[in-house]
């Protein structure tokens, strides 16, 4: 195999086709020991295409570019696996005026003691100046047989979304904060994408809070009816990162529901997901976000965040919110359970709608701050559910498509009561 590629093209090939090998799974010594090509980028030159691909058990990606006069040339077809970390170093610090020559001639297999597999010789990476044949640097890297590479299966299923990348990314980022990426049950570390009639709903939840962002279907080029899919945030976040704004990406769900594909014309990413089994365990977010609004207030977002950050000094988990009668301010009060320090903060409200003479609720402080940080407008509205429902809803007039609902926390049964005395 011998290919010559412009620096800008090879950088893009590596960024899009090698990011899986550079991920934590790809660089895990456990996976490497099992199969050395897990941490490699497979470079393929065939049928007029140069392709970089990498794979781990949960994810697979590839990016191809066709042969172009001057910038991408294939002198000899072939394929080889190159360790991603070494390839990254070899492709680093290059200038736009450089071209990279990747050459590989299979030789006798030899045992690589570091990863306990047979390597298949060496690959040389030469750097030349455009238009000049003489190589300025030549680097040799160990190569592994491409036959060992476990490429992901192409997704055969239904395309559920086609949209510019920025539309999907913005909606995804509005809700991803509400997920729990370390959820060991593998349910709440996922962002859900659901059909909601006129719009597509992106949902993030960790079972204590739920953020929903609705995007009108008109913003998408194509949508599927009744779609319901969960995307692992650990896999989806880097995937959305490799595409550029303006690119049109397609999201496809495999026919068995266990894989999702995100692709553009040259780039394909497949990732695992939980199918119907995971969806069955997912929070009924439509029911969760519905509530009968009771007391509410509209408040300046920055002012409210300032007050919340002050009470977080005493307890970053929870604080009491109250609306004293006749006042136009909301009072926040928090107490640390161990150190017993307390902080009170007052935030002036634009409007307070409270049917109660003195209503009080207990809310998550850190969750509220995270939610307010996501919103861009000046005003936010916070409303508390009526009756036995224990919910708190945050919305913003400037971001009408966003809604965030969290559980109201149980208040202390005996606030300020004395601790039981030690019996004599």
């Amino acid at each position, binding site marked *: 195999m011998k290919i010559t590629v412009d620096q800008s093209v090879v950088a893009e090939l590596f960024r899009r086709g090698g990011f899986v090998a550079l991920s934590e799974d790809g660089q895990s010594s456990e996976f490497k020991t099992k199969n050395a090509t897990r941490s490699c980028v497979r470079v393929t030159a065939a049928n007029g295409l140069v392709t970089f691909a990498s794979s781990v058990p949960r994810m697979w990606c590839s990016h191809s570019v066709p042969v172009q006069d001057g910038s991408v040339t294939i002198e000899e077809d072939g394929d080889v696996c190159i360790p991603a970390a070494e390839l990254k170093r070899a492709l680093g610090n290059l200038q736009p005026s450089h071209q990279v020559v990747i050459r590989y001639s299979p030789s006798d297999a030899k045992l690589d003691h570091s990863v306990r597999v047979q390597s298949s010789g060496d690959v040389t990476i030469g750097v030349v100046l455009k238009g000049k044949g003489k190589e300025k640097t030549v680097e040799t890297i160990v190569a592994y047989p491409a036959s060992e590479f476990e490429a992901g299966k192409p997704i055969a299923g239904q395309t559920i979304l086609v949209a510019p990348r920025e539309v999907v990314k913005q909606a995804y980022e509005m809700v991803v904060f509400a997920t729990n990426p370390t959820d060991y049950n*593998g349910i709440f570390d996922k962002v859900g994408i659901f059909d909601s009639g006129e719009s597509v709903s992106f949902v993030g939840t960790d079972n204590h809070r739920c953020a929903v962002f609705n995007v009108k279907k008109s913003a998408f080029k194509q949508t599927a009816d009744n779609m319901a899919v969960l995307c692992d945030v650990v896999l989806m976040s880097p995937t959305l990162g490799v595409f550029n704004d303006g690119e049109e990406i397609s999201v496809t769900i495999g026919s068995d529901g266990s894989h999702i594909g995100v692709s553009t014309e040259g780039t394909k990413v497949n990732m695992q997901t939980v199918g119907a089994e995971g969806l069955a365990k997912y929070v009924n977010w439509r029911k969760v976000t519905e509530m009968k609004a009771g007391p509410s207030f509209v408040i300046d977002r920055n002012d409210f965040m300032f007050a919340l950050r002050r009470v977080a000094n005493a307890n970053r988990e*929870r604080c009491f919110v109250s609306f004293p009668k006749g006042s136009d301010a909301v009072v926040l009060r928090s107490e*640390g359970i*161990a150190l017993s320090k307390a902080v009170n903060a007052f935030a002036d409200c634009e409007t307070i709608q409270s049917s109660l003479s003195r209503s009080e609720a*207990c809310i998550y402080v850190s969750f509220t701050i995270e939610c307010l940080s996501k919103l861009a407008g000046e005003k936010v509205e916070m409303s508390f559910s009526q009756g036995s429902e224990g919910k708190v809803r945050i919305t913003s007039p400037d971001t009408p498509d966003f809604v965030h609902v969290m559980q109201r*926390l*149980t208040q*202390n*049964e005996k606030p300020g009561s004395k601790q039981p005395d030690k019996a004599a």
Partner: protein
Amino acid sequence: MSDTPRILLVEGDPFVAVGKLRQMRDEWFPGGPPPGGWTVFETPRRGSFDSFFNSVQAEVSCPDWDDAHRVVVLRGVLNTKAFRKCLYTLFDSVAQSNTLVILDDDGVTVGHAADLDKADESDWNALRREVSSRGKVLNVGLPLSMIPEAGRVDYVMRCMQAVGKPVTYEVAKTIMSFGPPERWFLVPEMKKIAEACEGEAVTEKDVVEAIMPVSREHEWWDLHRAIDGGKREEMTTVAADLVSAGHPYDRLASICASRLRWHLAYASLLSYGAGGQKSLEAFAACPKAEDARKAAESRHDLRRALRPVDDGDDDGPKTRGRAEQLFWRSAKEIVAAVANMKPRPGSTLLDDALERYLAAVDAMFDVRVAPQEEKATVFQEAVRKMSWR
């Protein structure tokens, strides 16, 4: 879930308590807890409790969206007033549909020892009294080996009194004479003795008659210990002793199968002739055997995650650092492996994995809280615990 207490204190021998907790989890959540239904917090032994208790409080005071039952387990109770004060505050904020389970790791030992030495009510009893008034205290028993030797007879008398059958000092001594102290989980055993004895007072004869079946039951514990040790020779000897002592084959096979040691059991049972053949037949007929076999075959991933780690051999701090790194990583992998398990009804794989997970948590905990000079020894012990048995 109306019969589930909002606060539950599990006291007694930590290993038995963990088993009891697992049993309760299966009762409360048949088929495994739903996502978010079972959360475990581990008490930090250093630094301020502020953020820790704040997090626990937020978790226990947060009900489920549908008011479904949620359990928050707090492992470890420190024998300090500050800690207990925080616990009392925590009790005030448990949501109606939630349960706060406090699993004591070592506070009970301190508490009981204090009870024996002091006439006053100990701090531990104050905590127990507080929990009793708001929820439930579950005592899973305490082996005599955890009681100071001088106070053991006194403790037996107290336990018998607690179960409604007061005994004399002499009878208490007789009870103690059965079996080594580490075998005695007093409260459950005392209850059995009390049930077996007729009449108000308990005589020495009553005790001997009542205690024999209990004592005989303890012989099975040798098998459990041998299985835990993973030594085939020891297991073979114990299994042979049990069979020759007239214990039923099917129970032997059932225990082997349920502990996922079917291959060891097979080898062991083979090694003692005609009795072995009978045991094998019983083993094959055991409903859990097939499950155990499948589980053993499919546990490859878990086993890889739990592979023994390099213990460093004490050849310098650098190597030990590396070993420690591997140790923590393995612990994380156990957690991930347990999370990936798909529980099947009747399968013991998840139980075993959970047991490993809890052991790993224990091991991590031990290393973290050990005094600096004992860290190396505790670490070696933790690595031993972590390796696949």
